[in-house]
């Protein structure tokens, strides 16, 4: 198989934009492996705030997000056997570090991530994972889909 694309997703609007973008690209589905990745972070005080049941349901919620994404791409003509969902639950200090580690494991030819238009204040508060990936990743293309 020629190309391997790793797509970093969550339940945000920008992730939906990423899927739309990929779905509308002219790609050769039989020559393409897609890894749909979500880096799940379990906050240490989460159970106390949201309850154990709620926190235990969260990985399943993001699995469903990945499954929906896979279904969307299958409907767009991609082959289900070429799409792998990866939900990472090991703790990482940041989302970017989690993605970088998975890129090392899977060695994709391209990483795709969404980025919403951000004001200075938003970037200050929330940071920008896409910039960290562009800086840190070597030997792979990084495609940032802006919404």
């Amino acid at each position, binding site marked *: 198989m020629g190309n391997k694309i790793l797509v970093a997703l969550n339940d945000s609007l920008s992730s939906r934009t990423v899927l739309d973008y990929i779905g509308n690209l002219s790609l050769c589905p039989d020559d393409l492996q897609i890894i749909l990745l979500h880096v799940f972070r379990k906050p240490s005080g989460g159970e106390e705030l949201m309850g154990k049941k709620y926190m235990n349901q969260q990985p399943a919620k993001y699995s469903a997000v990945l499954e929906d994404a896979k279904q969307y791409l299958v409907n767009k003509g991609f082959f289900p056997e070429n799409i792998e969902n990866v939900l990472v639950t090991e703790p990482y200090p940041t989302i970017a570090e989690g993605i970088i580690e998975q890129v090392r494991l899977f060695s994709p030819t391209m990483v795709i991530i969404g980025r919403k238009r951000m004001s200075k204040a938003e970037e200050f508060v*929330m940071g920008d994972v896409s910039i960290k990936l562009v800086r840190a990743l070597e030997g792979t293309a990084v495609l940032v889909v802006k919404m």
Partner: protein
Amino acid sequence: MVYVPERKINLAQYRAISHAISTYEDVVLLGKHIVESICRSFDIMAATVLVFDDREKKLYYVCSHGLSDEYLRKQPEFEENFLQEFVTGQPVFFEDFRNDPRVKFKEAIQQEGIVSMLSFPIKCRKNVVGLLKLYNNDTWMIHDEDKSSIFVLSEQFGLVIDNNGLKNFLEEVRAVMSNLPLRMVSGI
């Protein structure tokens, strides 16, 4: 007889939110969980967090619970920059949000089913750095003690927002510093 609303935030809940504020590593996830837990505690329809850009003088969406994607694109809802919370530094209640003359997107508010809105300033020391907005599909009252609790928790959240921002900023500085030739960073 004067109606006094029931208190919803007890010490255990206050402690849980306060502990979460000081321990969550991800500020957006923290915001998401705070708005969701407030909605559950008060049984209200939705809540959202917006941050204030003091260069652009605009509010930007961070996270929410219970609002449609379509509605989130309409925020903030006011004509120009009506931000009473910034002037007074106190919570502002809009009893009839749909028909408030200061509101710009009345149709969107009606479509979303919002009737009232209670807005808390998120402060970091003296500065208002954002807003926590609570929406309901009915007129409602909140106990004064609960209002004080949310107000104080919003202040704590404001500290986290600024602290997280500084951490992001320092990461940027570190990345840029690593591009400098060694001769220029020796001694720094």
